[in-house]
């Protein structure tokens, strides 16, 4: 199900009670609805944005509601709460859509200002057609609305030779310790009983990397998430013990799902494997202890991810980088194990989400380019590996460094029994440079992560 997101700017005047003159008002609003905006229906939406009243208010964190019903109710109603001079004011107004005066009635918004239930002013806002129409129309997006919890259920359908992974990585903001909780279901290719296993690992800023395995134990086919002998990853709860590790964490999704591979490949498992994040960003609370150390985790950024497929790639790298301010970068670069495909250069799936927008817009763009041209490139290696790529007007370079002392080397085993070596660091470094072309390449944004990037490189 898709939602609707658009931005709108309204300009006008307000006359505050007790003042002789009018003041200029400007509203820069972003509306987000949980369903596709259909003109003949009534669509409620959340409003956020900036309210400016000349000399009185400039609140960048205004919040409110929008009711869009131009045909059914002939009304587009705005209710917005904002702060002015330390007082919490409410703007309440609506456009009254009239077929006789479509332009005026769709662009003029009379409103009243309230302080609590007391009226403190009234005014009129107008949508600036000349300057605002094009950005308004081009700003419409219909993003999918998905419940992160809906992606926790096991995908495995009983087919032999499949592996399924629930893994969570996070960084404790207080100590800088990286945490990796890996839960895996393996259905061996020989048809023997599926089993569950996994491990927990910590990557302290100072000190050695520690990990402990749990399982294997028989797979009990839970309805949701991963459950195996006291270790669970389900419904926003992460609990378990492995060796001297104990953990009990709650997960709060902060972002919609992020499909690193094309969405179709997750829904229809045609590729050897696919990875996705039920929530591109999440925060964690709780406790994790190992040896004599106990981490009280609070507001830790991280993410959970899912993998389902035939097994591990021939070679691969992975990066999850929380860039701050809601931005997140997810990269998987992999070479298939299939005989013909293993000769190809790595397929790069790069997803950069900023301000609710994901770049490139389609995951296939970075992997295959346009008919093979302009695909993103990965230079795999250790301790540093690099991904570069460009679209028409934007290019990116990502350098990931996994210092050996902060890297854990583990052996993976595919359903068919093949082995692979994984080198994982939940406290890696990363440098991300984003540039935009406007006559020449100009810096757009850059991020440097020191010890907070989550990365992995694997090979046979």
């Amino acid at each position, binding site marked *: 199900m898709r939602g609707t997101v658009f931005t709108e700017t309204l300009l006008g005047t307000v006359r505050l009670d007790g003042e002789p003159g009018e003041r200029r008002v400007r509203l820069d609003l972003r509306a987000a609805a949980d369903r596709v905006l259909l003109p003949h229906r009534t669509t409620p939406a959340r409003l956020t944005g900036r309210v400016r009243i000349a000399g009185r208010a400039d609140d960048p964190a205004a919040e409110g509601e929008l009711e869009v019903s131009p045909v059914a109710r002939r009304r587009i*109603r705005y209710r917005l709460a904002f702060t002015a001079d330390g007082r919490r004011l409410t703007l309440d107004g609506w456009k009254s859509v009239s077929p006789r005066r479509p332009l005026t009635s769709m662009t003029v918004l009379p409103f009243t200002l309230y302080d609590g239930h007391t009226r403190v002013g*009234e005014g009129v806002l107008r949508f600036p057609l000349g300057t605002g129409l094009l950005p308004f129309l081009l700003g419409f997006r219909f993003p999918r609305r998905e419940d992160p919890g809906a992606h926790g259920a096991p995908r495995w359908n009983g087919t032999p030779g499949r592996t399924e992974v629930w893994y969570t990585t996070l960084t404790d903001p207080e100590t800088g310790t990286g945490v990796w909780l890996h839960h895996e279901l393996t259905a061996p290719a020989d048809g023997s009983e599926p089993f569950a296993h996994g491990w927990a690992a910590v990557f302290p800023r100072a000190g050695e990397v520690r990990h402990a395995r749990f399982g294997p134990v028989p797979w009990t086919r839970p309805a949701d998430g991963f459950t195996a002998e006291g270790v669970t990853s389900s419904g926003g709860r992460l609990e378990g013990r492995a060796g001297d590790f104990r953990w009990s964490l709650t997960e709060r999704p902060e972002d919609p799902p992020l499909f690193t591979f094309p969405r179709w490949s997750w829904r229809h498992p045609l590729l050897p494997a696919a990875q996705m994040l039920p929530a591109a960003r999440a925060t964690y609370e709780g406790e994790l202890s190992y040896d004599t150390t106990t981490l009280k985790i609070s507001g830790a950024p991280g993410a959970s991810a899912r993998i389902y497929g035939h097994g591990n790639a021939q070679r691969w790298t992975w990066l999850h980088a929380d860039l701050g301010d809601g931005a997140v970068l997810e990269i998987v670069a992999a070479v298939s194990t299939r005989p013909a495909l293993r000769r190809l250069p790595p397929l790069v799936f790069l997803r950069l989400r900023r301000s609710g927008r994901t770049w490139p817009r389609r995951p296939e763009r970075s992997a295959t380019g346009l008919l093979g041209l302009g695909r993103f490139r990965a230079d795999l290696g250790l301790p540093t590996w690099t991904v570069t790529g460009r679209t028409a007007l934007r290019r990116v370079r990502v350098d990931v460094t996994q210092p050996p002392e902060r890297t854990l080397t583990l052996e993976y085993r595919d359903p068919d029994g093949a082995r692979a070596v994984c080198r994982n660091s939940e406290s890696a470094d990363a440098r991300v440079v984003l540039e935009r072309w406007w006559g020449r390449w100009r810096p757009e944004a850059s991020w440097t992560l020191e010890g907070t990037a989550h990365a992995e490189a694997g090979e046979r």
Partner: protein
Amino acid sequence: MTGDGLVAALLAADDTDTDAGAWPARVPHRLDSVLAALPRPASAGVRAAVAAVETYALARTGRRLAALHPDEREDVLRSLARRPRLAPLLDLLKVPVLLAAGTERTGVPPVPVPAPADPPLDCTPAEEWPARTTADAVVVGSGAGGAMAARTLARAGLSVVVIEEGRHHPTASFGRRVPLDRFTELYRDGGATVALGRPPVLLPTGRAVGGTTVVNSGTCYRTPDAVLARWRTTFGFELAERLGPLLDEAERTLNVAPQPLDVLGANGLLTLEGARRLGWSAAPLRRNAPGCKGSCQCVVGCPTGAKQSVQLSVLPDACAAGARIVTGARVHRILVDHDVPGPPRAAGVRAHRPDGGELEILSPLVVTAAGALQTPSLLRRSGLGGHPRLGRNLSVHPATSVAGRFAEPVTAWRGVLQSVGVEELRKDGILLEATASPPGMSSFVLPGLGRELRRELEESDRLATLGAMIADRPSGRVRGRDRTLVRYDLAPRDGDRLLTAVRAMGRLLFAAGATEVLTGVPKAPRAGSPEALDDLLARTGPRDLHVSAFHPTGTVAAGGDPQRAPADPEGRLRGVHGVLVADGSVLPGCPEVNPQLSIMAAALAVADAWLGGTGPGG
């Protein structure tokens, strides 16, 4: 000026009257101001009739009326009067001229006592009301029904906004202007609302904060038990069962009491005397005017504040409970949300300001109390007029009046305007009420033209007037969306009742000592004895009478049968959620008495039922 020549002719103005200071000279100006207040078709009709008379004079004499000698003008009028078919037309022309002449002849009446301060109202002119507001309930109309509904809802804790098309007229403003000026301002269409039919019926309704209660006579009858029983059993109007205590409440609110004799006035006393001699039951009316000073100006706004119109009694209570009144705003439509589960829901109202702007108030509850003539149009404009019976079932009280000439001055305009009720013929559906007119504003069309009319005018202080209203069959219909068009065809039974009423009034006036009775019938205006009156009425039909009508009800009747009643038994409009009908239109049939108390009690019951039954959330 309109018709200075015609005015001079009708009033037989001679050379002495043309001085600037003489009252006949001022009449054309006054006539112009009266016509300016009338709806355009009415004033155009009067102007066309004036032009026709002038053309006739021109054709007959070669000069316009103004240029003629008084004798020549008299000659022209006499020639016109010889054509009986023209008599009703000339009578219609006489009405505005007589109103203007009466006002100018009487001059500005002195105010008996300084006007007391009105209880405070929270009124805001529409121009100052924000274009976008919200409320828990919007009440359309501030008359008897609207005020009572607003008070009930506000006292229950709802934020209530009352929207009134008219202006707020404080008591103090009444004493400063002559009655005729107030008349044209306080009534819709300048008081010239007409129901089309044979005969056409004048149907005046008030338009001000307080609605028609500002301009009614203050007579407060309780709904008769028989009527309540009929509403309940025949129509299924269940609320009728609960109206008894609510009528008590309405009476308490309005301080209803029998009118004391001290200020009754000669008109009322003569009526009592006439009834006593005939052995008829008659008594001073129960009125809502404690401390009435007998100003005889009820119908143009009581200048002493004695009459407890709802703007002095109910609306102040509503405002004290938090209700607010927007004045000068005409509700264009009720906003309805259709895309909701179940039936469509009321969402508020859109109203027009006098300056052409619009204002909208969102509210989940809309109470229509715009009166039985306006509510159907409002519902049609709002897309809620789909019920086949909406606008039909219009009941009014057809009324006519008779004047009696006495040897001694009566000066009917000193005393209570509507003072005495004669209930002898109540069982026949006829209610006689001694009803005078405000100073200078005789509603009775005096007979004659020219010198004869002038003589009648000069001697009008010797006239006592009686009015009769009858319980009718609901034979009217309100049409129209943007403009209300009323059609009313007097039922044959009701025509007979009117003639019976005229006969009864004549008998009573003769019994009281009248030397002559003026019937108001153009072709037979006078009767010198009861027998002569009987002869005269034997040759008269109801269409010859000057019929006015009051108290329109029943156009959005409540009842149990969904096929016949647009509103359900609790006054909720069918087919939509959140629209209550709380004015005269909700009454399922003719109340047979002055309906203020009935409407107030019904509105109270409807609002109570909403609060106590389904309630705001239901």
